[in-house]
């Protein structure tokens, strides 16, 4: 039996510590890890909890992130509650195995502390790694602060291990901006947190010797497509379980999460739609702009990046005239991926609002309230003109001459 850990109702934790406490409270059976900045403390703390008797589990140190996720797959297939953490290059090295985890329908929870991908080498936060995983068949949840990194990690186990879902879940938090920022966090007591998740009830577990199973079967063109289709259906259908988990969590804590979050959107003419910590900074900017200049600004945020909430995004933005979609990842020869998703959602709306794309914050470049205000004002100018007056894609917060691409053909 695990030792009791003393917790206060109110703690001052950074995002990493918060996530590691969630792993402790979930009593994760196995963490297989190859630590990498800025996610290191999550698995480091798990190791310490195991060593000090606070978790009845196993910390396995391996030789690469590829091996880390492979080990997680083995432990999860064996029937355990399994988690790990990574960032950036580590995430990239894990990429091949991420698809195996989702394909085998293993409920692993991966804490991703978002960090830029080299080159040039950079340890700070952007969403390059998160985007790299977006087709991997994992549910992807986004935390905007340390409290949410904790809350969503708890919810992630509940969703992943649900028998109608049985899919791995990533919980993303912004490197340093969330992971290394200490703030007030209001944790659940241990038994409450554990009861919220419940015991893991394994499916097809390899340690069930009464029913030996094969994992990792080979399927060629006569079977592969059907398996991938079933997997896609499962992630598309996971929304109900995610919503239920969020509702149950609200009953326990009063903290309500939605797959799409809206702030000041009731009467908004212009909106920023964002991921991660940028959301909260943009919310402050929207409030300020409403007070100072009467611009009806609002913010829409994606809590659940996969499965992508097309209907909820369309609903949240249907009355807006101009939208700035903010991508914190170098798009590499295209519009931002998030811009493409939002555009797809809005193209089939009645209103077909103007949609623009900002590439910002790469390598941890600061996103300030003033810049958010400038972006809102530019959306207002598009709305007043009735068409996009700038390039559709622009870089925000960049030094040097203005950089933008692709112009509208609507007038």
């Amino acid at each position: 039996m695990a030792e009791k850990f003393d917790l206060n109702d109110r703690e001052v934790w950074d995002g990493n510590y918060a996530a590691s406490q969630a792993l402790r409270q979930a009593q994760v059976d196995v963490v297989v890890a190859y630590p990498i900045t800025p996610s290191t403390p999550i698995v480091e703390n798990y190791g310490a909890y195991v060593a000090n008797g606070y978790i009845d589990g196993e910390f396995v140190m391996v030789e690469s992130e590829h091996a880390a996720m492979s080990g997680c797959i083995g432990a999860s297939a064996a029937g355990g509650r399994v988690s790990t953490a990574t960032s950036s290059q580590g995430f990239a090295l894990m990429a091949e195995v991420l698809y195996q985890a989702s394909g085998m329908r293993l409920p692993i929870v991966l804490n991703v502390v978002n960090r830029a991908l080299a080159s040039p080498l950079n340890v700070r936060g952007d969403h390059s790694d998160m985007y790299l995983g977006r087709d991997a068949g994992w549910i992807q949840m986004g935390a905007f602060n340390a409290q949410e990194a904790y809350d969503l990690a708890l919810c992630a186990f509940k969703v992943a291990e649900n028998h109608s879902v049985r899919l791995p879940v990533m919980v993303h938090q912004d490197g340093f901006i969330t992971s290394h920022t200490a703030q007030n966090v209001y944790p659940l007591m241990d038994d409450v947190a554990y009861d919220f998740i419940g015991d893991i009830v394994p499916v097809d577990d390899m340690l069930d010797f009464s029913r030996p199973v094969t994992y990792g079967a080979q399927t060629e063109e006569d079977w592969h497509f059907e398996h991938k289709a079933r997997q896609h259906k499962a992630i598309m259908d996971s929304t109900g379980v995610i919503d239920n988990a969020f509702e149950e969590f609200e009953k326990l804590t009063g903290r309500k999460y939605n797959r799409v979050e809206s702030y000041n959107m009731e009467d908004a003419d212009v909106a920023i739609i964002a991921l991660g910590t940028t959301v909260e900074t943009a919310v402050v900017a929207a409030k300020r702009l409403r007070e100072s200049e009467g611009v009806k600004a609002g913010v829409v945020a994606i809590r659940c990046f996969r499965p992508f909430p097309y209907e909820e995004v369309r609903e949240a933005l249907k009355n807006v005239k101009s939208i700035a979609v903010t991508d914190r990842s170098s798009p590499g020869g295209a519009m931002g991926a998030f811009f493409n998703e939002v555009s797809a959602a809005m193209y089939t709306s009645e209103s077909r609002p103007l949609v623009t794309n900002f590439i910002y914050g790469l390598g941890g470049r600061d996103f300030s309230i003033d810049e958010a205000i400038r972006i809102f004002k530019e959306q207002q100018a598009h709305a007043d003109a009735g068409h996009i007056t700038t390039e559709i894609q622009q870089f925000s917060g960049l030094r040097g001459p203005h950089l933008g691409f692709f112009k509208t053909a609507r007038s």
Partner: protein
Amino acid sequence: MQDLKLKANDNRGMSQLEAGFDLLGWDEVTQGSVLPSFDGDASDIVNKKAEERTYSGFNSYTATVASWRVNKPVFNIDVCIDCQNCWVWCPDSSILSRDKQMLGIDYDHCKGCEVCVEVCPTNPKSLLMFNEHTDLEVALSEWPEKKKKEK
């Protein structure tokens, strides 16, 4: 001809891999392409011989690849010394052996690769390749004599 169902249970080699029947839709395939090896409780399966096991339809035991074979190995029990070399080397677990006694070939899974013949140390060999349609008696009657060492 050796008994084609030597030491076989009811469903050994009953399905054809090439046949293309039973191709299920996306809503019917197993979750995560995880495949159970046996039907029912398999707790004691390790203590059972193959012919007593309840292999599931997902297990290759129940499929046949006999048609992949052009020539077949024939086993001559009179020459065999039960060294188990063929059992060790066979890549398809098609050598049937019990208590270290060689019994014959699993013709549902043998692909006719000839490895067993190659590794057989006896003189003459206790396993030799014959045309698929050759009868056992004919094959045995054509078995070569012991070769003498050339001086």
